[in-house]
């Protein structure tokens, strides 16, 4: 029986996909047949390694672009390249993000600017160009990775929480605007997930966060990737403008 998660022939862009949730998502989409376009800011070498890993493991086509999602011109140039090579885009996962924890009174201007540039502006830029490619085929799915912090807040995360709340606002408005073009826009709000973003947490904070998860385990990047797969697939064709928590019943 053919899987309802079948993504054969679909072209998917995953931002921030050299590691963590992005990489787990890239592998998940590739494993169901999608051609995956990787992106990260840090290292073209790492991206090339990741690209070859995808091709080898899943026997799929893959592409990689190193660029800053918060740089409008870089994003535009990348989507031009996608258009030239593939002529279409079916799935966008806006995953790239940065995190700087600071208490009110100790928030630096540069941290605010970088956080919003990557976490918020980057989502808008990618969404805009992706939607223009998607509307040619009158179909597409955009999945924005928000955060539980954007829904309920957290101490020390005024900046991060603000940027992620904005991602939810973007999702809700874009979903309304793009629905007539059959482009769906949803968000995922991960809770406490094992990624590089939490590796600097003290033992005490780590324990506190874990205690707040009702399932009593930290989430894995694959838990988020599974939700992305659902929203990217044809199993969710009537779902738009939703924010799905992937948090193990976390209460903050």
């Amino acid at each position, binding site marked *: 029986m053919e899987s309802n998660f079948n993504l054969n022939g679909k072209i998917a862009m995953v931002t921030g996909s050299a590691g963590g949730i992005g990489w787990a998502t890239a592998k998940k989409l590739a494993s169901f047949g999608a051609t995956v376009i990787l992106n990260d800011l840090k290292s073209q070498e790492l991206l090339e390694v990741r690209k070859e890993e995808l091709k080898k493991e899943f026997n799929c086509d893959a592409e990689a672009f190193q660029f800053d999602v918060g740089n*409008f011109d870089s994003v*535009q140039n990348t*989507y*031009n390249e996608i*258009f030239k090579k593939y*002529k279409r885009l079916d799935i966008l996962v806006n995953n790239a993000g940065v995190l700087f924890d600071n208490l009110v009174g100790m928030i630096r201007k540069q941290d605010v600017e970088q956080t919003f540039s990557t976490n918020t502006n980057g989502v808008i830029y990618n969404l*805009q160009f992706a939607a*223009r*490619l998607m*509307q*040619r085929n009158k179909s597409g799915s955009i999945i924005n990775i928000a955060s539980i912090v954007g829904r309920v807040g957290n101490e020390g995360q005024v900046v991060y929480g603000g940027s992620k709340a904005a991602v939810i606002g973007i999702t809700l408005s874009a979903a309304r605007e793009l629905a007539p073009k059959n482009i769906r826009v949803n968000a995922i709000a991960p809770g406490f997930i094992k990624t590089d973003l939490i590796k600097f947490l003290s033992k005490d904070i780590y324990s506190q966060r874990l205690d707040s998860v009702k399932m009593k385990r930290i989430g894995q990047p694959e838990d988020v990737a599974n939700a992305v797969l659902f929203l990217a697939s044809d199993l969710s064709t009537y779902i738009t403008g939703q924010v799905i928590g992937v948090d193990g019943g976390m209460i903050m």
Partner: protein
Amino acid sequence: MDNIEKLKNIFVESLEIKPNTVNDELSYGSASWDSIAHLALVASIEMEFDIMLSSDDVIDMSSFKKAKEILGKHGIQF
């Protein structure tokens, strides 16, 4: 069909106007050429001529005449 006819047809269909009203003076804001129609127009132009316009091009495409100029930058001859 030559390129000018292709472009005129796109304007007629996207803006739902009569062919004899498509001329160089036709501009954004006139008749049914509003923001929603503009995006449909852009999508149709991109598909017909197999190009991807820049965001500046999309915003600057404020008349039929301007559309021809912008397409000229992409190698479309009229």
